[in-house]
């Protein structure tokens, strides 16, 4: 972890000159063209920009689910490029929580089973994992639905389960990919409120990729991407005031 200076939160993720190209030859598409970004502990950072600007690709690179060609990504002081794939997987399992646009809850597993996945993958016993999952489900307000199946829940409820799943193993980085895209406006706002309330801590950082301008006000900083690069990084309220 980088040292903090002048009371500023310390750096959790440091991306420098990250490039990523899909395809080869004439059909090659440069998705990331030397992206730089710092993500700080204790902050909710949003990555915004038009479709196809490379937001999701950059998010995938930051959390180690996609390899990149050039540049460097330091995640909690570990250089992702220097780690073996198995190390990255283990590191990700321990340190990253995911909230997906489509929730990705396994339909044949009930709520508490879905929420306990990260702990089970880490080797925790079923009882321990489910007890921890239950605590988180209670915290996100859906504890009474522990035995329900995802198809029996509304979109907002499913996203709450996804939040519980993302936090159950106490990760230091929460990755959210369009968390409100599949939700109505009210549910989307509630989910972000909840996320801000229980996910944001001084020892943790949250990255949200979104198109949804209604939730920009929840961001501590907004990285604006365009054409495979971070065009600007705005402080709290700046982007909202400027564009929305």
């Amino acid at each position, binding site marked *: 972890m980088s040292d903090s200076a002048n009371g500023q939160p310390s750096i959790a993720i440091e991306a420098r000159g990250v490039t990523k190209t899909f395809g080869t030859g004439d059909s090659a598409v440069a998705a990331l063209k030397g992206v730089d970004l710092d993500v700080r502990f204790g902050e909710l950072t949003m990555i915004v920009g038009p479709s196809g600007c490379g937001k*999701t*690709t950059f*998010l*995938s690179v930051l*959390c180690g*689910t*996609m390899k990149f060609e050039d540049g460097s990504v330091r995640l909690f002081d570990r250089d992702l490029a220097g780690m073996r794939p*198995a190390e990255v*997987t*283990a590191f*990700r*399992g*321990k340190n*990253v929580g*995911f909230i*997906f*646009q*489509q929730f*990705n809850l*396994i*339909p*044949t*597993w009930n709520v508490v*089973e879905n929420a306990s*996945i*990260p702990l*089970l*993958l*880490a080797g925790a016993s*079923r009882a321990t994992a489910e007890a921890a999952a239950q605590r988180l489900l209670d915290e996100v307000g859906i504890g009474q639905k522990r035995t329900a199946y995802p198809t029996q829940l509304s979109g907002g409820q499913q996203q709450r389960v996804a939040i519980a*799943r993302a936090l159950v193993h106490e990760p230091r980085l929460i990755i959210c*990919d369009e968390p409100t895209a599949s939700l109505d406006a009210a549910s989307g706002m509630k989910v972000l409120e909840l996320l801000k309330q229980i996910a944001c801590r001084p020892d943790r950082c949250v990255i949200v990729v979104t198109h949804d301008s209604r939730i920009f006000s929840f961001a501590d900083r907004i990285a604006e991407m365009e054409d495979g690069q971070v065009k600007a990084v705005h402080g709290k309220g700046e982007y909202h005031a400027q564009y929305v």
Partner: protein
Amino acid sequence: MLRLALKMLYGDRAKYAMLVGGLTFCALLMSQQVSVFCGLMRWTTATLRNIQVPVWVTDAKVEQVNEVVALRDIEVDRVKSLPGVEWAVPLYWGILNARLPDGSFQAVQLTGLDTATLVGRPGKMLAGRVEDLRLPNAVIVDQVGVKKFKAKGIELKVGSTFEINDKEARVVGLCQSDQSFLGQPYVFTTYDRALQYAPPQRKLLSFILVQPKPGIAPETVVQTVRAVPGLTAYTSDEFFHKTIAWYMANTGIPISFGTVVVLGIVVGIAIAGQTFYLFVHENLRFMAALKAMGARTSTLAKMVFLQAFAVGLAGYGLGVGVASAFGFGVLKGGEPPFYMPWQVPVFTGVVILFICCLSALIGLVKIIRAEPAVVFK
């Protein structure tokens, strides 16, 4: 995670039913057809079980038990005089036509036992006494004969009569015997009387049945007999395998049954492989999500293999179970032949295991190739 892997499998009921159905069909086809094949092969050696002796002596050119090249009666005395032989008795075995009271004919396997000792006598009598074979014109007919005669409207029982080669045969007993490949009933009588029933020939002795002296191995006696010009000998076990090998080499039975078994394997691979691939494909997004959340390849491999083995076990159990039920059913009726030695379920299990491994590997390759970042798309 393994428990949840099973839950993932059982939760998709339609796919699960298809997978189990495919493997059940495959296991059923293989175990049932192989068992019928084994039963058929076993029928070819029925004479060896109906006449139980350690050593069989035949003409040197005889290759299997249903083939007779007659010997001279004097050969019995030659064999008796060989070292290591406790006793040797003659046996007549031939297929003759029995003429029934209504004038119809029924082919029978006439078996003439040594008159003095009745060596090779039926193991289980259903009616009458074996010793009554020494009465004039006495014969004992097996359950196949009862069934065949009944099909022609004749209720066969002790006291019934029919003719063999224009000579009277009086039933003094009914017995249980193993059904033979040829399907004709066994009719037991004495050796002397069998020679009277049989059409006149210069030589009529079919086999010499031999008992080694105590402490002498049947194989030793076999070697001694083989040294005699014109004769050969087999232990009962050796004759069994030689007979089956002959049928395997000289008939189309293995090819026709083998084709069905191979078809079962191919159909099993096709159904199970494709369905499992579809199952994995549909769950790929969730598997990728698990990868993103830190699932190691070994964890995912365990999950996929467990799912494959779970359907394999269910399909195997149902398939072999149905085949066994079929077996129990047909054993009551006696036809078609059915014999399921332990090797059949093991063979079926190995093939099902192979199909499961193959299906799991195909699915696993797809999962391994999937980038965890696919969950963001």
